[in-house]
């Protein structure tokens, strides 16, 4: 029972890359891995459940005087248990989320195993258990579960702000970002540009090749744009095939150079959609320079008009809003 539960958990953790739902006969490896976030949450939930279960294991040991298993009694139990192994393998992800809490999980998890081992060793040797061990067990278990729950909340809230397909942030929070850019603009005497970027003829890609290829194309353009951003540029996926870019520049020339780079990068990086087919995609950019204290909605409206104008006049170009 114990073992099978552990195996079930393990298979759930390790079987996350099962591709049973990938039915499209498209170039392997080009399909975006949409699932890692979901798996991460599932793995986290499983970890929490396993550690909740320790209470039951300790109680069985205390009442029945049966061994909770050699893995529990091993001094290195915290590195042998499934959670320990899984957590170690995902440590970089956890550290990205919060390095300090990650360290705390390691410390608390180890302390919890130490207290369990001590409790069980006493029981099995016929000695009364130490109340300090029991307290330590309860405290560390509570803290561990609390830490994992906090990670889960963080992952879920990030997921809500992040587009799973392109890995770009979504429009949520863009107002705050814009205000931050406005402050930077004023403080450093820079120019702030807001650009609307739209993939040309994207509907045709979807209609001709289907939505899975549309997704590949979308992710490819997003990646190309990302690779060609400057350090402080912020790119957001607004939805559909439309992106929004916040860009600070010392001069109009710098802004035109940065925009040209994006437009040219997309045009010169065709996307491979099958072994022998590649598509050349282009984008049109409408750009507006934000004036002092201009509301984001107003700048976007101007940039959007330029985008529309660029679409009508031929696409694959960047248009600065004019009066």
């Amino acid at each position, binding site marked *: 029972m114990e073992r099978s539960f552990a195996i079930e958990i393990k298979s759930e953790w390790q079987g996350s890359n099962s591709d049973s739902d990938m039915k499209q006969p498209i170039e392997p490896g080009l399909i975006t891995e949409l699932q890692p976030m979901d798996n991460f949450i599932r793995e986290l939930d499983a970890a929490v459940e396993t550690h909740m279960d320790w209470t039951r294991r300790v109680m069985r040991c205390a009442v029945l005087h049966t061994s909770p298993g050699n893995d529990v009694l091993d001094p290195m139990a915290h590195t042998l248990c499934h959670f320990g192994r899984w957590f170690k393998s995902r440590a970089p992800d956890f550290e990205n989320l919060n390095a300090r809490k990650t360290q705390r999980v390691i410390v608390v998890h180890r302390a919890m195993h130490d207290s369990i081992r001590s409790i069980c060793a006493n029981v099995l040797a016929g000695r009364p258990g130490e109340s300090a061990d029991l307290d330590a067990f309860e405290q560390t278990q509570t803290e561990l579960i609390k830490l994992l729950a906090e990670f889960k909340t963080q992952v879920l809230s990030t997921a809500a702000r992040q587009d799973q397909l392109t890995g770009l942030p979504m429009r949520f929070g863009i107002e705050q970002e814009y205000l931050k850019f406005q402050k930077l603009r004023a403080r450093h005497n820079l120019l702030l540009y807001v650009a609307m970027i739209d993939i040309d003829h994207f509907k045709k890609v979807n209609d001709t090749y289907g939505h899975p290829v549309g997704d590949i194309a979308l992710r490819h353009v997003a990646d190309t744009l990302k690779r060609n951003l400057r350090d402080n540029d912020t790119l957001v996926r607004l939805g559909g095939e439309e992106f929004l870019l916040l860009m600070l520049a010392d001069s109009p020339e710098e802004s035109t150079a940065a925009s040209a780079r994006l437009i*040219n990068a997309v045009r010169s990086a065709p996307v491979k959609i099958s072994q022998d087919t590649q598509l050349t995609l282009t984008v049109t950019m409408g750009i507006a320079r934000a004036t002092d204290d201009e509301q984001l909605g107003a700048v976007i409206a101007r940039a959007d008009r330029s985008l529309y104008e660029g679409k009508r006049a031929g696409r694959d170009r960047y248009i*600065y809003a004019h009066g």
Partner: protein
Amino acid sequence: MKMNDMLIADPETRLVVNEGEILDQLLQLQDATVLELGCGKAEKTRIVAKQAASVLALEVDEIQLAKNLAVTDLPNVRFAHGGAEEIPAPDANFDIVLMFKSLHHVPTGLMDRAFAEIRRVLKPGGVAYISEPVYAGEFNEVLKLFHDEQAVREAAFAAEKRAVASGQLALAGQKFFMQPMHFSDFAQFEEQVLKVTHTEHKLSDETYQKVHSRFNGYMAADGATFHMPIRVDLLKKQ
């Protein structure tokens, strides 16, 4: 930049912007003494006058000049009659000489003289900003039906190259961009393009019909938008 690098067109141009932005990027207009050759309706003159110390704006078209002379709200601008081939100004008088899509209107045989004149009136270190429409794009597709400028535009570019090759002026840079143009309907196109006073366009009924139908091919619900490719050459007097 060498003369051999000088391009008449750049099909890779993707930048769409008003020329005012390009002026700001390429020139130091602030407090400059400026000459504009072929100022037409003085639309650019107004933009330049905001920063320049003074502008002498010349126009050969008498009808347009008369209208310009009636302008009263540009105190630092003086409008006068004059062509690029014979500039009514002393030697070494200007920091900047501007020609907005006017070089190809200079009679072909006078273009070399125009450059000699530009050199004469520029101060040492001064620059000539010459913008010319590139013979390409959708607007040109409509325009060339009744007014094909290919020959004069090529002649203008050849004259620029000669001015550079002879050492009169040095090529300081080139910039390509697209100028946005919008017409809400054909009537507006007719008013602004067909009825300009500097060139008399006499269209046969057949040509008029062709122009009308090609223009309509670009019409959307709110009018027709064109992005006209433009070349800017910056020539410096050393």
